[in-house]
């Protein structure tokens, strides 16, 4: 790897999701030097795993593509994938940062022809599809991944598979001698854009996510709709591969609950409303959606969206937090039990598939930050003077939709720019 050049006028952006990309671009397009580090092999974050975007129901890939084009075109941004920050010390305007880069085992020569993927045999749970499908030990993380370069799973290195991959590559792109690299750089400000992760659904014991095949999470549901995804874009039941035309959505799964996440995750009402439209799109009049909710928190202009879905006769809204789920052994149908708030009727409703509108929590747990950072009760980064020039962008600061995440990223970029401008002023 070529030398990484950074000074205390450089801005370090951690996390290559939509927020990190935005912050990096805002700063770079103002002429600042930016290093963008991403833990996984490619940029994109969780937005790249969505099928459609609310509120306009456009495809998220298109926004990401524009960003990538801007990143590729901008000489001020340097992207480092497979890289994490292990420590940060110093003060605003002068931080010393240690980065750890894991080996990709594939160099710049890669044309992503795919021959190595065909040659290897070992398969692994596909993290991009939340484990819904498998990927090979030599793989492109996802269709349209950037950098568009294959990766070898470290688990195959040292096995016969690695040799097979190397033998299959006609471009001399596989380098099995690559090792972990550590780099220490100086930067003036840090933008922390490490995003969110779905709450562990298995912890919501009465919903049986880990016991019933046909109880899945909202993030997995998004993956099902992707034409390149694990089901080829079809809404199918994991238990028997049948089309799931009658789908229940359970709101606040893991959120607003003192036993789980106390906060409202804010986007999951909109996400479920959006996902009900997938049913009509795929099954027409045969698609039926039922949303079980405490109250629908559709944010601002999005209320129209809610009203439209409410007017669809195929969509039912039941005001009730589901108490428990059991499985009908014969049909494999999950059966939802509870009492509704509009009349206090007790119900036991079978559906083909249940989607848990899973809560969002910070992807980096409180104890894992590379320096001392002020966090709120839920573990999101606070805007606090004690954090110096360490600014959160996007979902590392709160559960946000993309619109708000991007606004927050722009704000952080401006804060970071002010810090490095001051450094530049002092140094004349």
């Amino acid at each position, binding site marked *: 790897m070529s030398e990484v050049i950074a000074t205390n006028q450089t801005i370090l952006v951690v996390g290559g999701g939509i927020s990190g990309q935005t912050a990096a671009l805002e700063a770079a397009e103002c002429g600042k030097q930016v290093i963008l580090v991403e833990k996984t092999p490619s940029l994109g974050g969780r937005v790249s795993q969505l099928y459609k975007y609310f509120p306009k129901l456009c495809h998220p890939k298109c926004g990401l593509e524009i960003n990538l084009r801007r990143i590729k075109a901008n000489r001020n941004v340097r992207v480092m994938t497979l890289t994490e920050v292990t420590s940060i010390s110093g003060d605003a305007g002068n931080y010393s940062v240690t980065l750890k880069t894991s080996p990709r085992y594939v160099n710049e020569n890669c044309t992503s022809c795919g021959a190595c993927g065909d040659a290897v045999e070992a398969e692994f749970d596909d993290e991009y599809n939340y484990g819904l499908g498998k990927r090979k030990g030599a793989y492109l993380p996802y269709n349209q991944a950037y950098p568009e370069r294959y990766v070898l799973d470290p688990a195959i290195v040292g096995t016969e598979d690695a040799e097979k991959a190397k033998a299959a590559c006609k471009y001399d792109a596989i380098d099995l001698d690559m090792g972990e690299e550590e780099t220490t750089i100086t930067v003036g400000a840090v933008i922390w854009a490490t995003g969110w992760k779905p709450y562990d659904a298995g912890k919501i014991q009465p919903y049986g996510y880990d016991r019933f095949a046909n109880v899945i999470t909202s993030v997995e549901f998004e993956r099902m709709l992707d034409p390149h995804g694990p089901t080829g874009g079809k809404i199918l039941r994991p238990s028997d591969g049948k089309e799931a035309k009658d789908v229940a959505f359970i709101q606040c799964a893991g959120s607003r609950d*003192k*036993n789980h996440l106390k906060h409202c995750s804010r986007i999951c009402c909109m996400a479920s409303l959006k996902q009900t439209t997938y049913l009509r799109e795929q099954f027409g009049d045969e698609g039926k959606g039922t949303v079980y909710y405490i109250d629908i928190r559709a944010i601002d202009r999005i209320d129209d969206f809610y009203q439209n879905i409410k007017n669809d006769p195929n969509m039912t809204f039941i005001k009730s*937090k589901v*108490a428990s789920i059991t499985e009908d052994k014969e049909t494999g149908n999950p059966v939802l039990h509870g*009492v509704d708030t509009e009349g*206090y009727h*007790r119900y036991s409703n079978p559906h083909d598939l249940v989607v848990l509108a899973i809560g969002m929590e910070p992807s980096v747990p409180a104890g894992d930050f590379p320096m001392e950072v002020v966090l709120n009760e839920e573990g999101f980064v606070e805007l606090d003077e004690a954090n110096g020039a360490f600014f959160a962008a996007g979902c590392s600061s709160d559960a946000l939709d993309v619109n708000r995440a991007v606004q927050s990223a722009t704000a952080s970029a401006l804060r970071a720019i002010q810090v490095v401008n001051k450094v530049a002023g002092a140094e004349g």
Partner: protein
Amino acid sequence: MSNYNQEMIEKYRGNFLKEVQDNVEEGDWVKMCMQCGVCSGSCPLGPHWEHPPQEIFMMIRAGKRDEVLQSSSMWMCTSCYNCIARCPRGLPITHIMHGLATYSKRLGLAPKNQPTAKFAQLFWDNLTRTGRVNELKLGLSLYFMNGFSEGIKTALKMKDIGLGMLKTKRMTPMEILGGHGCKDKKGFHAMLKKAQEIEEARIGKSGS
């Protein structure tokens, strides 16, 4: 008792939520309920209640004083604590149920012949006599709670269990003669009296 009821009606003038907050154990929590329904859905007794906990909380807020206080619902609670474990807001639902039951009894509004209420009274009377529960007498009074012939039937049905308990010395037939008590019966009764006074003073305070 009914004077007390009248007094409370006049004092709170339709603000039943406030009345509950002031007079019912853990009643302060009622306003924290977000009506999600998890307690009602998780209560194993739920299907047999007239009004599950969630509905009771809504009825309190809606000022349905008579319906709540005369209801048999909160007497159905078995203290299994399922609801407390599950409530996303952490309401001490079990305690509120017992608090409501106690308050309704204090007001003289508890449903007559509600079996749990009747048993609670039998248990209390049995315990306070000597400071120790006399299981034999308690068992018998429970059997005969619904009349003599009903009692004989139940007693016969339970005969094997009773004999088993005698055999393993879990119960002694001598108990029928009065049975064992605590060491300082006098002190025990004085303590109960004092507790009653404190309780009455507390009620009097919130009731005045």
